[in-house]
């Protein structure tokens, strides 16, 4: 039994780590969803296939390119704090990024994907996909492509919850309906 002790200790460590990581992610995300501030963001989804995580709608944000203030050493892959401002249409817009969080107001921590010569950067946001039931994802894609092609007057946006710079995607809406409800009528039962 004495000989087995390190083995059992290692197993206990492995078990602890195996629970701590997913549980930590789940608890942190749940807390943001419960108590974070809600924002609305316009999107443009497409539908790739991810072997690890089932099907999802990949999200792109029209306003995810921002002008950087001059005088700072901006570079790609840099982590920045991006303030969120709500416009008159109730949708959020990204403010001017800074290396440190703003003193007031909500912000997102994002990464600069690239910085062009004019000082305009595209942002890598912490949410870039919305997972759906594998049967629903292709239908969601078709619905949004139709909307984008002008065949319908549908609008697409997401709601996110933000707290202390962390953000969690809450829901995807098409034509002011949660995607699941929007698709409920179009999917065969």
């Amino acid at each position, binding site marked *: 039994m004495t000989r087995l002790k390190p083995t059992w200790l290692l197993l206990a460590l492995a078990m602890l780590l*195996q629970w701590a*990581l*997913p549980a930590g*992610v789940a608890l942190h*995300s749940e807390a943001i969803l419960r108590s974070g501030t809600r924002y609305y963001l316009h999107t443009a989804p497409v539908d790739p296939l991810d072997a*690890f995580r089932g*099907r999802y709608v990949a999200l792109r944000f029209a306003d995810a390119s921002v002008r950087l203030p001059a005088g700072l050493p901006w570079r790609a892959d840099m982590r920045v704090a991006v303030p969120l401002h709500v416009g008159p249409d109730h949708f959020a817009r990204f403010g001017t990024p800074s290396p440190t969080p703003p003193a007031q107001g909500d912000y997102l921590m994002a990464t600069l994907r690239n910085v062009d010569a004019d000082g305009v950067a595209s942002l890598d946001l912490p949410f870039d996909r919305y997972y759906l*039931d594998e049967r629903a994802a292709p239908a969601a894609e078709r619905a949004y492509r139709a909307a984008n092609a002008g065949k319908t007057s549908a609008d697409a946006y997401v709601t996110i919850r933000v707290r202390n710079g962390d953000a969690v995607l809450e829901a995807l809406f098409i034509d002011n309906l949660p995607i699941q409800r929007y698709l409920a009528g179009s999917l065969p039962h």
Partner: protein
Amino acid sequence: MSKQVAAWLLSELPELERAGVLDAASAARLRAHYAEAGSDTVAPGLSATLGALLLGLGVILLVAHNWDQWGRALRLLVVALPLAAGQAACAWTLFRHPDSRGWRECSATFAALAFAAALALVSQIFQLGGALDRYLLGCALVGLPLLYALDSSVLAVLIGAALLGWVGAQDERMRQPLLVLLAFATLLPHVVSVWRRAPHSMRSTWLIGWLVPLVFAALSLTMPAMRQFAAFWLSAWALLLIQLDSAIGGEASLIRRPLRAYGELGWALVALAATFPDFWRESWFGQGGATTLWQTGLVAILLLALGLLCTVHALWRRRWLLAALSLPMLVTASTQAGFGAPPASLLALLFNAYVLAIGIALISEGLRAQRLRAVSSGLTLIAVLVLLRFFGSEWSFVLRGVAFVVVGLAFLAANLWLRRKVRS
């Protein structure tokens, strides 16, 4: 030792202990040694591990369906079930089947896959983007204590593959050779332990046979600057593997010596390619990026120093053939260091003579030591060299055809004669 004899010896151990012929520690060592050797059959372990792998992957796919109609809490519970089952299997293995390799490999593999699935699916449930490189690194690092708790070589290879995936998924600018070396070094105690318990066993051969190319691929990915020094990089690796094998290899067949097999393959590729003048004129793999230059330089210098040390050691022990195998590394290092254009034709001529000399030396050593493998290796090397020269020359088809036939017949006759001589 056959399995029956090993089983008989194991059954005798309690009696030998009682009679005071063996103490408890020696009996335990014998048990561990022959349990390892006795488990050197592939089929049961392989089928069990494949079963665990398929089961784990099946569970991932089932949960990845993303049952939208279920609430988050229910989905999290479903995600947690395979992980709990995997962990229970690990605990059961240590408690009830600590000596069963099949149980250890299966439970560790399943628990590691269940964890990977849980982490990915929690991200799915909370709509988190996440980065593949960090995910794979997380899976690899969390798998480490499980690997050492269950002593699972399948998990070691899975972790090696996850580390390679981590490097591959990283942005090229973020790859750090020293960090990759450190990450793979975490698997080294397991490899050494398996090798010490049962050198040349199917398990150690399989483990090393997988890990060496994984490390090589991961390190090559981290050093884009090394692409233009590919010949040096490959020949230095080949030399190190051959030298390492000669230090620990023993007399097992080549199939049970993956270090030697990879080393000889790498050496032959560079040495034979170097017999063409164009090899010295062109940069085959293009220019690499300029990132992590100091780390790349450090790794290259470390490799060169190790290679030189091994060569000096071989010379000191008067193992001339072994020492001579370092020539491709030394010449490629000096010509690729950027001291002007190398004399291509002269170097190609030198390497033709060199490969021929190594072939003859192998045949001679094989005859002296009565080892048919060395003789065959020497003959094969010379045959490939001759073939390359025929393909690379401007001779007519008729002349090449006649030359092929003559050389082929000569080799068949030589092989027949040598077989008789060695066997007699």
